């Protein structure tokens, strides 16, 4: 099967104005960083410079935390939940109104296809605010006792794979619960968070309730270490998650950690194969596999392995890889040179350890960071590509014979974030869902998200949940007796 030729259908970048430089958003306004340092953010699809953003130093972190503390004590803390709710509803509406602007900016800064940013990231972010808005005056019903209390100042550090969506997962429940926020977006994708600050000004959110400080790992570490921070929420690597767990040990700070994954996507011989192929593709090539819950280990029952792999290769050959701004693009750029190197290194380890690499003959752009959708077959459980999180469009295929073997292989990982199960047999779905040690199990589907649905890991994939009623709980201190 060959791909049809499509004429290019590029989205226009003119919908968004990018400033040449950005300061820090502290106490309701943009200010220069006392550190005087800055970093550049680039378009990973073209390597073009997009903007210069400030790097917050210790004094800037201090200023941001103080602003959040003051807002907590004077405005946001004393405000009735019903009033907080209306600000959150406002934010949700503003996000929906300006969704195209946010989508385009996300694509430029992150490299993901416009189809994903437009149809998933931005509408989900708006929906997240809308969902948690309704909780703000109903906290007594959350299951945290009568009159549960917020922690105070929340320090939130988010990754680059879903910049605005992760911002919404962090900020919406924190504010609904009555906390104030200092958020640090990722070093390579700060722009939609800064545009969100502009949106907060339109919403007239009281100054200091949300502060956005940009920078790299050092800024995040300074923020989390600040003694006046009460709540820490981090999404990122397991390695950094462990450092944070150590940092908050013995203090009053509570942490929510959403870390890495190595999800098994299990295909039984009675699976609906057409849907399963789409699920596999969505599971590992959505956002170029730069997803902590990506279905990066395909466990396929031996009797149908050849068929599944052949059909998967045929389907992959029709994926359109390239310009993220093109509305027909399925797979965009890798977010950074560093991430491309990690993917490349792990793929080479796959070659070296004896797995067999396949990727369709794509013409990748010459500029920017690109890795073609790739499949490794003949992968053994001990291979690095079966154990380590690649965070790229690389699928490792393993086989199994019995349901017990599938469970054993699926659980044979320090991670436990998500898993997929494909079979038409209902009782098998429920038994597998019981036995798999993962926070989200997608049965006959994959990579589904919703503001009402909790997300988060077992084991070294972290702790705490985001989304749904459960996602509110980490931002509340238990109230009176239950």
């Amino acid at each position, binding site marked *: 099967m060959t791909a049809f030729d499509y004429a290019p259908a590029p989205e226009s970048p003119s919908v968004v104005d990018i400033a040449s430089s950005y300061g820090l958003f502290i106490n309701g306004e943009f200010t220069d960083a006392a550190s005087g340092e800055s970093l550049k953010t680039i378009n990973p699809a073209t390597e073009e410079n997009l903007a210069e953003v400030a790097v917050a130093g210790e004094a800037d972190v201090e200023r941001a935390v103080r602003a959040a503390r003051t807002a907590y004590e004077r405005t946001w803390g004393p405000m009735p939940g019903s009033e907080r709710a209306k600000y959150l509803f406002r934010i949700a509406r503003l996000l929906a109104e300006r969704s195209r602007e946010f989508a385009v900016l996300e694509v430029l800064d992150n490299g993901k296809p416009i189809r994903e940013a437009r149809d998933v990231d931005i509408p989900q972010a708006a929906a997240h605010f809308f969902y948690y808005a309704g909780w703000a005056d109903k906290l007594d019903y959350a299951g945290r006792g009568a009159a549960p209390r917020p922690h105070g100042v929340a320090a939130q550090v988010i990754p680059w794979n879903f910049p605005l969506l992760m911002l919404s997962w962090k900020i919406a429940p924190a504010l609904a619960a009555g906390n104030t926020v200092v958020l640090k977006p990722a070093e390579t994708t700060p722009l939609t968070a800064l545009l969100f600050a502009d949106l907060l000004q339109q919403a007239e959110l009281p100054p200091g309730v949300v502060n956005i400080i940009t920078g790299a790992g050092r800024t995040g570490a300074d923020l989390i270490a600040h003694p006046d921070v009460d709540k820490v929420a981090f999404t990122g690597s397991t390695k950094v998650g462990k450092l944070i767990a150590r940092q908050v*040990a013995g203090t009053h700070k509570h942490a929510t*950690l959403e870390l890495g994954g190595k999800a098994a996507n299990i295909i039984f011989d009675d699976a609906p194969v057409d849907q399963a192929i789409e699920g596999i593709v969505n599971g590992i090539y959505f956002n170029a596999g730069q997803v902590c819950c990506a279905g990066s280990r395909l466990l396929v029952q031996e009797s149908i392995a050849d068929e599944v792999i052949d059909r998967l290769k045929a389907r992959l050959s029709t994926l359109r890889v390239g310009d993220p701004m093109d509305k027909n693009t399925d797979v965009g750029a890798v977010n950074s040179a560093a991430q491309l190197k990690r993917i490349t290194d792990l793929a080479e380890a796959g070659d070296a350890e004896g797995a067999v690499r396949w990727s369709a003959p794509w013409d990748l752009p010459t500029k920017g960071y690109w890795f073609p959708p790739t499949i490794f077959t003949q992968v053994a459980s001990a291979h690095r590509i079966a154990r380590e999180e690649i965070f790229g469009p690389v699928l490792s295929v393993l086989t199994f014979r019995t349901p017990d073997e599938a469970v054993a292989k699926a659980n044979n990982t320090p991670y436990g974030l998500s898993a997929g199960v494909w079979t038409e047999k209902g009782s098998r779905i429920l038994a597998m869902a019981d036995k798999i040690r993962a926070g989200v*199990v997608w*049965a006959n*589907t994959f990579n589904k998200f919703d503001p*009402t649905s*909790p997300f988060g890991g077992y084991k070294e994939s972290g702790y705490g*949940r985001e989304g*749904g009623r459960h996602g509110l709980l980490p931002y509340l201190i238990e109230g009176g007796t239950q």
Partner: protein
Amino acid sequence: MSRVDVRKTYKLFIGGKFPRSESGRTYPAASRRGKFQANVAQASRKDARDAVRAARAAQPGWAGATAYNRGQVLYRVAEMLEERRDQFASQVRAGEGVSSKRAEDLVSAAIDRWVWYAGWSDKVAQVGGNANPVAGPFFNISTPEPTGVVAVIAPQKSSLLGLVSVLAPVIVTGNTAVVLASADRPLPAVTLSEVLATSDVPGGVVNVLTGHTAEVAPHLATHADVNAIDVSGAVGAEGVTWGELEEAAAETLKRVRRPLTDEEPDYANEQSLSQILAFTEVKTVWHPKGA
């Protein structure tokens, strides 16, 4: 001439059996007035490992039992404890230095605590889980599941009621436990092992170590096959702080339950659903709807 009584050898409780410490060591436990009570086993790192292995082996079976069954087993523990209340009262009186009346009350509260938690077994999933109304044609449900193997550092002062208050909420959902008893007041914990051994609690579901907190607890905190640790009982422990244990637990990202204050609480009021939920993982399952 009065009869010479036959004294009990106080041993560890691992995998449903009562071994001595593999290290061969013991240490003397004294009453609050300083009177020798018994030599108890001084658990080693190897004993802690054996206990974790036993807890891991027992975990799938215990989690796989029906909630109704686990509730009955916990209730059975209350029954057996009630029958031996005099023995516990005498050990609590001596070990904690309280009056007979106070010791009786503490034992009664410990029995009632098992009953309270027993009743939660088949309700936790209902109260702690829920359906999620996602915006699409999907069935979607979230349920709390047991975290796995949980290390429990028992309270240092409240040797029976405190111990029961931190143990029962761990095992009611299907976790298995490795308990490190109060270092200075270990006897009720050993006697509780004997109750558990005769209460239909499967071997390995609860394992009880006696020994020095500072020696054994750090091994439990770093052990890669322990999923969670309750360090709240380490308040007031000799030679190690709860913060140090939490720090040690970070490398394996264990779930950690901390103390709420720097003082050991009055365990009379320490029972809550949130204590059960602290050792659960919320799992969310999606499935498409369609004819």
